[in-house]
C-alpha cells in the first residue's frame, strides 16, 4: 500500500503514545499523530493545547492552537497559565509534540534564529510553548524534515532544552523530569541512548538506507542499532485520510 512520508511520520509518532497519556499538541503533523493514536490504540489519551483548550472533540482539524476548533465541545476551556500548569503537573504523564528549525545530537532545538542572535540571517517564530514543554513535560517527541541544515553540530540558538550536554546534565540544570524521547523525520525514527543521551538511528522507513540518514545528518550518528520501521497498515491510513484530515489540510 502506498503512503507518503508525512503519513508515515504521523503514524510512527502516534505509536509512542500510550493509553492515558496527556498530550500537548501543536498544529501540523503532531495533531495528526495525536488524533490517529487516540482513535486507534490510545482511546483514553487526552489531547490539550497550550492556549487552554482541554480535550476538544476535534471534529475538524485546527489550523493553529488558538483555532476555535480547539475549544469546540471541549472538556473545558481555560487559558495559558492553566494549560502550562497541566504540562508541568507531576501527576500527569504529559507528552509534547514539537518541531524546530534545528536540532543537535542531544535533542536540543532552535526555533528562534539562524545566524547571530542580534543580527540574524533568518528569524523564526521563537519558542512559543516549545521551550516550556521541553522543560516541563514528562517527555517530548520531535518532528523534523531530515537534512544537514537541520540536524546540526551546534545550534545557532538553544530554544528548547533536550538532554543539554548529555549524561546527567539535564537533571543538574534543575529539571526534575522530561527530555526528548524520539525524533520522527521523513526518513526515520531516532532515539536517545539511555546513558549518554546521544541520538541514534532506531528505525528507518521502508526503502531508506542507514547511509541516507547519515548523509542527511550534520553530526556523527550511530546507525548500528537500526531496524526497519513497521509500515502503516490499511486501517491506520484509512483513519488518517478519511477521518482525521479529509481536506488534506496537513497531509497536503
Amino acid at each position, binding site marked *: 500500500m502506498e503512503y507518503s512520508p508525512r503519513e508515515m511520520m504521523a503514524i510512527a509518532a502516534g505509536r509512542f503514545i500510550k493509553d492515558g497519556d496527556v498530550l500537548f499538541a501543536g498544529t501540523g503533523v503532531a495533531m495528526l499523530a495525536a488524533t490517529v493514536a487516540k482513535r486507534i490504540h490510545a482511546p483514553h489519551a487526552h489531547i490539550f493545547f497550550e492556549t487552554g483548550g482541554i480535550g476538544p472533540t476535534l471534529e475538524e482539524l485546527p489550523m*493553529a492552537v488558538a483555532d476555535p476548533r480547539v475549544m469546540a465541545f471541549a472538556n473545558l476551556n481555560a487559558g495559558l497559565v492553566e494549560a502550562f500548569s497541566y504540562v508541568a503537573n507531576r501527576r500527569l504523564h504529559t507528552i509534547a509534540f514539537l518541531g524546530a528549525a534545528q536540532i543537535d545530537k542531544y535533542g536540543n532545538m532552535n526555533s528562534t534564529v539562524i545566524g547571530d542572535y542580534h543580527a540574524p540571517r533568518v528569524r523564526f517564530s521563537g*519558542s512559543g510553548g516549545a521551550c516550556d514543554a521541553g522543560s516541563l513535560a514528562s517527555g517530548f517527541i520531535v518532528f523534523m524534515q531530515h537534512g544537514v541544515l537541520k540536524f546540526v553540530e551546534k545550534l545557532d540558538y538553544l530554544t528548547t532544552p533536550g538532554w543539554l550536554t548529555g549524561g546527567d546534565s539535564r537533571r543538574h540544570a534543575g529539571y526534575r523530569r522530561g527530555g526528548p524521547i524520539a525524533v520522527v523525520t521523513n526518513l526515520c525514527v531516532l532515539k536517545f541512548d539511555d546513558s549518554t543521551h546521544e541520538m541514534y538511528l532506531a528505525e528507518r522507513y521502508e526503502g531508506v538506507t542507514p547511509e541516507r540518514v547519515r548523509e542527511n545528518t550534520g553530526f556523527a550518528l550511530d546507525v548500528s542499532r537500526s531496524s526497519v520501521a513497521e509500515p502503516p497498515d490499511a486501517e491506520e491510513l484509512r483513519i488518517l485520510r478519511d477521518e482525521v484530515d479529509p481536506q488534506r489540510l496537513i497531509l497536503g
Partner: protein
Amino acid sequence: MAQHNDLGGKLITVGEAVERFVPDGCQIAVGGFTITRNPMAAVYEIARRHIKDLHLVAHSNGQALDLLVGAGCVRRLDIAYGGNGRFAPTCIRFRKAVERGELLVEDYTNNMMSLRFLAGALGVPFIPSKSGLGTDVIAREGFPAELRGTEGVPVHKLVVIENPFADGDDQVVLLPALTPDVSIIHAQQVSTDGTVRIRGLSFADLEQCKAASAVIVTCEEIVPESYLRLAPDQNALPPFLVDAVVLAPYGAHPTACPYVYDYDPAHLNHYKAVAKGDESWAAYLDEWVYDVEGWDAYLDKVGGAQLARIRANTVAGYAPGLDRR
C-alpha cells in the same frame, strides 16, 4: 431591550480610545492568540493613526503583532512566538523587521509571558518558573544594556536563583512582572455597567488586563447588565477594571471570535501572499489601513458575503466546513 447608555462615559469610538490611551512610545499588550480574538479594529486604528515606537508585550498574538510591526508602529517587542499557525509559521513582516534590525526583540516563552502578566496581575514584582534552564532564552538578552531599567524595561531580563526551600540542584527562574500601560482585548459581550464576558479560550487576556494601567475592550455587542448578572460565573472582568468600551462588530476580523465568526482564511491567505513583498505590502497597507475611513468601511471591503461565509455556528463556535485551504 432599551438602547444602551454610554456606560458612564466609557463607551467611546475606537478612534477616541486609541487617541486617549495609546500614545507614541507606550507599552501595550493586545489580547488574543495567533488567529483568534485579536482586537483588530483597534489594531487597524493604531496603524491608521501612525502611532510610533510602541513597546509591544505579547505571548503569541500573531495577526495583531504582524500588522503593528508591518505598519511600523513597534520599536520594542517582548515576545514568545511571532507566528500565525498554519497560515504563517513565522509572521512575515515580523520576520523581515527583525532581519532588517528595525525591531528590538526580547525572547521569552509562552509560559513565561503568561506568568509575567500573572505577576503583574497579582501585584508582585516577579514570579518563578522552571522553564528554560540551560537554554539561550535564559542566557541571551535581546535588549541592549542601555535600555535596562528604563521605562517598561526590567533591570534584568530574568534572574536565576537557587530554590531557598531545597537542598541544592534546584535552580529557579525569576521572571519580572509585566505592567503594560494599556491592554486592549476583544470580547463577545460587554454589559451596560461595563462587565466583560469572553466566550471560548481567554488565553492570557485577563491577566493582561489586570496587570495594565488602562484597559480598552472592543466588543461584538453590548448587553443588559441584568443579563450578565444572571450567570456571574461566566464573566471575565469587572466594570472597575475597564476604562473604555468600543462597540466593534466583527472587530477581530480577520481573526476569529469564537461562537460569532471564524477566522477568514481568504483574507489570511491574501495577507500571507502580499506580506512577502515590500511593494505588495505597502499596497495592502494603503488598501486596508490608510485608505479605509474606519471600521464600517473595512467591513464593507471585506464584503457581506464573506462575513456570512465565516459566520460561526453558534453551538460549535466556528464555521463547519469552511474552506480553509
